[in-house]
């Protein structure tokens, strides 16, 4: 019972941007994936979600192989990814956004809808508003709601806090905690390290598409040099291409 990534490599237009990443997410566990800009974090997410094709390795959910499967299959298998930059279907209303996302679990759509609105009352209040007209924070909620509408067992969130006011970030991290307690396995991709590290059990640091550090989050948090080392390697030159 876990989401297992083994030696995963991802190619994005020709060049390999993620190479041989291995880690495991267990239910109720939070893993933070850190790394400076262009380290390959987002590509890793898209690779797992089936948006980018894996050039090597495998991804399995509770034993079933989903490597290179199309995004909707991955979703159905129980893995949901939230892309970077609070992306929403701008020309659709909030309600339509959620229904569109929920349509792959047609049978319990209404149930999931209810749950999601309970979790985000702010959205319930704006059901018929065009998602494009929402504030950044609200859009990030819709983005999260997209994922929740498929009742995922594993959730991968890319740069949840990027460009959001601290209070909203706090609010969203609350939601993440809730989900964790309900036994959802969560992967947090973050740049602002301490935030992520404070909630994560495990941490991985990427540089140049390769993992520089795998281990306990607290260790990284306590020892900034260790983090620095992993982030930029020795002597901080031309990090991550």
């Amino acid at each position, binding site marked *: 019972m876990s989401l297992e990534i083994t030696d995963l490599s991802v190619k994005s237009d020709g060049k390999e941007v993620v190479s041989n990443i291995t880690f495991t997410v267990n239910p109720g566990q939070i893993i933070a994936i850190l790394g400076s800009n262009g380290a390959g974090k987002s590509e890793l997410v898209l690779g797992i*979600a089936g*948006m980018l094709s894996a050039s090597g390795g495998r991804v399995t959910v509770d034993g079933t192989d989903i490597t290179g499967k*199309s*995004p*909707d299959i*991955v*979703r*159905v298998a129980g893995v*949901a*990814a939230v*892309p970077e930059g609070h*992306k*929403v*279907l*701008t*020309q*659709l209303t909030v309600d*339509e*956004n959620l*229904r*569109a*996302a929920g*349509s*792959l679990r*047609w049978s319990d759509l209404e149930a999931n809808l209810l749950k999601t609105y309970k979790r985000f009352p702010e959205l319930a209040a704006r059901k018929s508003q065009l998602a494009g007209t929402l504030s950044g924070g609200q859009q990030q909620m819709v983005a999260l709601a*997209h*994922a929740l*509408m*498929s009742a995922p067992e594993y959730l991968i969130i890319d740069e949840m806090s990027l460009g959001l006011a601290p209070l909203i970030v706090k609010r969203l991290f609350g939601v993440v905690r809730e989900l964790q307690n309900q036994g959802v396995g969560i992967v947090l991709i973050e740049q602002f390290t301490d935030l992520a590290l404070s909630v994560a059990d495990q941490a991985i640091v990427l540089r140049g598409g390769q993992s520089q550090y795998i281990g306990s989050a607290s260790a990284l948090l306590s020892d900034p040099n260790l983090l620095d080392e992993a982030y930029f390697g020795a002597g901080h030159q031309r990090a991550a291409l």
Partner: protein
Amino acid sequence: MTRGSIINLALYVCAMTVIVLLLGWGKPSKVLGLFFVSGLAVGSLYALGGIGLVVLYRATGVLNLANGAAGAAGAMTAWQMAQWNIWAPFTWLSCILVTLVISLAYGRFIAPRLAWREPVVKAVSTLGFALIILGLVSFIWADDPRSLSLPTDKIGVRILGLRVTVTRLIVIGTSVTFVVGIWAYLKYTAVGLQMRSLANDRNLSALIGIPILRVETIAWVLSGVIAGFTGLMFGDLIRLEPTVITFMVIPSIAAAICGRLEHLSLVLVGGLSMGVIESLLTLSPLLKGVRPVAPFVIAALVLLYYQRGNRLTFGGGN
């Protein structure tokens, strides 16, 4: 109904009246009526073609220049069936079926390989497909005068002194039905919702688990059916000649442009207006020679009107 759309409507009404008055000035109203109705008849064909293009473009991002060619193949099949004295309804069905299969073949086997290219390349690639179909059709059916006729051609009613056959009424009726029906489909059904989200943001839709392949397949089928019906009507009302039907797609694009490749109702209005103006130009001794230019000029102007004001894009090409 926002303020903008009211202004647009007003502008449209003014423009049309001015044009009609300019061209029809001093002509007996009977003649005017004749050309007006005959224009509507042609316009409805432009509109029908445009609707088929827009439905597909919205859902898949492919502007299918091969629609006409597929329709031509369908129409020729229908003719062949009729030659073999097969029960008429089956011949019509075969037309739609053949067109559907051709369009679906492209949608399933070729379009996916181009999914990541920009819209223009997707569009021009379909021309290659159109050539294949046209080539095969003209190879199978050597050039010969043919005609396709429906029982509804025989029945007709008089409108403003012009006799209009039921077939033409069917064309206009179907166009309207398509517009309303597809609007409702997109608004109220699950697949419709998925199509709209696809049209909104393809990648995000994929990520949030919308079964792209399935939704697109449905879109290709839908547009195939429309293209088949269009081909049948072109074959009956214009000419049963593959090349002519194939390249009807270009004025159809003009109609589609009037709807910003998005709003079916505007496509309908645009198509009809083009037909009317083109037909009324016959009354102008100066311009009647070049009256087929009308759709293109209108489309270009409409496009410019839509795009007025917006000047720049942040990041990226388009």
